[in-house]
């Protein structure tokens, strides 16, 4: 046993005891990142709380409550209802495909009256939960067998297939990233991943045939943004100009010319990092990257502390999920990756994204609180 001095107390933890077990450090970091988001949204609306910042603050406060709520749920309840949640998500995804609301050229929302539910957001979380649940009781020897790759493969690819047909390529790729990372840490043989990467590269030309016109355009303009400086490449070019002109110390709060003269597109959603780095410069940008890095490290720390495989894998998978979103989004606005329409978690304006990210962190906190719980083996 590596961890010899830890106490086993989770089964009979009191409410107060659970609150004490919350990893407050990560909560503080999350709040800091969200607050940076509020500043950016305040600037995006030209120095006003309306229309973005105030709404985002309300959502964050609500989501923060949800985070604590989830964190304090007994992990056994969650453990038992994983399949139900995963199945429900698949059902909702199918529902969206059938009667989904058409918006932005993609069917992504279920209009529930009060909020527009985005099942693809839920899928990011429930897929990770399902994989963690699947591998919880498996022996390493079984995991290494190829034939046992079928079920986790299906768990991962079923929601991906439904999400991609919506079409929401960004979310689909994020689920694949997180899912693959989980398969990897669960112990699936190394050579399989090498093979997978190779076949993925080989599949690119075939996949190209199935892409929609705007998705092809995004990739093409990413490869050569100058080819169409006023059209589709405009976003990337202007984002790079905004970032570059920020310099070392930035142009100052509310002073970002690219932002305030509307040269920067989607500044309150996908390109919010650009807004921040234009106004706060290299110092602000690197600070933000460090903050994101610390949140990820915290997730790893929690995962390593967990004494059962479910929470360990769950905390890890959700952390990877968060990091994939952050890295892909920032890489995209810097012109390193194609524009795939992925928001920056905790900062980008938007309700569902905020809700799911906070739910995920709630689950990570829950893992932390119940890191020593005993969970039954078996399927």
């Amino acid at each position: 046993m590596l961890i010899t001095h830890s106490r086993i107390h989770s089964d009979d933890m009191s409410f107060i005891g659970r609150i004490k077990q919350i990893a407050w450090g990560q909560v503080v970091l999350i709040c800091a990142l969200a607050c940076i988001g509020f500043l950016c949204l305040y600037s995006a609306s030209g120095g006003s709380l309306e229309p973005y910042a105030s709404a985002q603050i309300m959502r964050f406060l609500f989501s923060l409550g949800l985070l604590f709520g989830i964190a304090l749920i007994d992990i056994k309840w969650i453990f038992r209802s994983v399949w139900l949640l995963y199945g429900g998500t698949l059902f909702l995804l199918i529902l969206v495909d059938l009667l989904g609301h058409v918006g932005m050229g993609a069917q992504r929302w279920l209009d529930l009256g009060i909020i527009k539910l985005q099942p693809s957001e839920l899928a990011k979380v429930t897929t990770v939960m399902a994989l963690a649940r699947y591998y919880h009781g498996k022996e390493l020897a079984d995991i290494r067998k190829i034939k046992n790759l079928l079920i986790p493969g299906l768990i991962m690819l079923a929601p991906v297939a439904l999400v991609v047909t919506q079409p929401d390529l960004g979310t689909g790729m994020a689920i694949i990233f997180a899912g693959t990372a989980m398969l990897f840490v669960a112990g699936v043989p190394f050579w399989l991943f090498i093979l997978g990467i190779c076949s993925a590269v080989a599949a690119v030309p075939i996949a190209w045939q199935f892409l929609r016109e705007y998705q092809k355009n995004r990739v093409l303009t990413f490869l050569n943004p100058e080819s169409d400086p006023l059209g589709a490449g405009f976003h990337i070019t202007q984002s790079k100009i905004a970032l570059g002109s920020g310099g070392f110390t930035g142009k100052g709060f509310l002073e970002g010319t690219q932002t305030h003269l509307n040269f920067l597109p989607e500044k309150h959603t996908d390109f919010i990092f650009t807004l921040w780095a234009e106004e706060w410069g290299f110092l602000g940008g690197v600070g933000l990257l460090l903050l994101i890095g610390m949140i990820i490290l915290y997730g790893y720390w929690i995962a390593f502390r967990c004494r059962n495989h479910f929470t360990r894998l769950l905390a890890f998978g959700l952390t990877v999920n968060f990091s994939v979103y952050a890295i892909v989004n920032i890489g995209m606005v810097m012109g390193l990756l194609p524009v795939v329409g992925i928001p920056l978690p905790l900062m980008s304006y938007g309700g569902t994204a905020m809700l799911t990210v906070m739910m995920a962190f709630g689950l990570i906190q829950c893992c932390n609180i119940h890191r020593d719980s005993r969970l039954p083996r078996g399927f």
Partner: protein
Amino acid sequence: MDRDQEKIDSFTRRAFIVGGLQGFGLSVLGWRLSWLQLVEGERYTTLAENNRINVRIIPPSRGQIVDRYGVPLATNLQNFQVLVTQEQTEDSEKTLRDLQSVITVDEADIQKALKLIKRNPSYVPVEVRDNLAWEDVSKIELNLPHLPGVTVQAGELRSYPYKDATAHLVGYVGRVSDVDKMNDKLLSLPGFQVGKSAVEKKYDLDLRGKAGRAEMEVNVHGRPVRQLGIDPAIQGARLVLSIDAEFQRFVQQRLSTERSASAVVMDVETGEVYACVSHPAFDPNSFSGGISTMDWEQLRDDPTHPLNNKAISGVYPPGSTFKIVTALAGLESGDINRNWSVFCPGHYDLGKTRFHCWKAGGHGTVNVVDALAHSCDTFFYKMAHQIGFDKIAQMARRLGVGQLFDFDLPEEKAGLIPDTKWKREVKGEVWHTGESLVSAIGQGAVLSTPLQLATMLSRVVNGGKEVKPWLAGFANDKPLSISLTGTFPEIGISKRNLDIVRQGMEAVLQQGGTAYGSRISEPGMSMGGKTGTSQVKRITMAERARGVTRQEDLPWHLRHHALFVGYAPTENPKYACCVVVDHGIGGSAAAAPIAKDIMLEVQKRDPKSKKLEGTG
């Protein structure tokens, strides 16, 4: 729990690999950020500034043109334009129709505006009509609440208060042609106008002024957000002309009794042009707002050439006015003197060819003064036969006939003084003696402009100084004429011979002279001069036989031109003039009476006594 431990170890190892990848990803982002913001920061800062700042050119106000007393000849009027901004309208076509019910707007203008609206971003105001009258402006202002997106803007419109009286001098402005637009942002401004003729063209750069710049911060759509800095435009120079505007108008009205005529009045010493009129003319104001094709064609095709300034670009055989030059050439060459006489039987025979004097009965015995007074052709035939035409041509050039003066109007023409060399080189033919005879009386190939004839006379009566005519005096304080800073050199003609010619020109206005009827007898005022009648078409022997000799019976365009050059007063001359009545038949009958009125008026007004405005 060894199997569990193995699972945990595997997880830990592999999680470190994934974590390492994430750390690598974040490091790449940090490296990329430093590349963009630290290494390339300056380049991107420039790009961002270029995005942000839009420089707008502020057109300068065009300089005024005034006469010698400061009376405006060309000014700028406020030009009210009605504009429509699409984004402020609900339906731009409906707004235009509503506008049409308030003021008159041509269907063509509506269609043009609709086309422009489609082509431009929605926030760009598009011109619907300009040159709005005051009533139209107030009608629009009154109805503005019902006309969303409609605005009235005050621009500048060139205005010429003296209208056709100064049209040929001042010229007019027009839209920039595409050739002129090259690389000049100011010229590319919509609606910017440049000088198209006369002084407006010649001094366009002075009059244009300097464009200002306004730096505007613009958003992604190019819409100005706020003004960053302004460098105001500098108005064009105020141009002072030597013209006496009221006198100019007087001359123009006097000439308007004729179908087509021109006149120049200038200072014999300084070369200042006090009046320079070509009749008929046009109203340059009709050009400022754009002239209709029909009006333009009518002006262009008129046989009296209203668009041309005949005083400087009309080339006429000078006729008998050229005898002043011929006489001086003879006297200066020493071949003749005051007493050298010729008997005029009404013709001069050169071999088998007979050259007729205008007076069929002949003038009897005449010396040079009589020959000028009575305009005897025979005297000059004989003299030219004796001295040849090259000496006369040389004198003509020294006196300015057939010469360009680098006058202030770009339309100035040179005319022609032929000689043996010219004949040989240009025509490739030998000069015949007969041509000397014809040229000596200002016919044949000799061509001159009224401006040249006035200048020639000025040089004769000012004691032989090489005066040059000019119009433009000052651009702001900058003197434009050499006569304002120095004096004209001597030509080198003896005063005695000049006096002999002046005696002849005084005799023209005395009893028996060809222009006695046009003499000035007001106390203290007088005039000397020379009549001229130049053939447009020779009367053929056949016509003579048929009896069609009366000029009045010929079609207008074939009749003789009537000319008169005059100076005043006879003692210490100040003013010289040249009057040409196109196809006016006779110099003494048609041109001299006009010259009399003009020279009387100029002596009364005496513009020479008042210095050019702007000198002080």
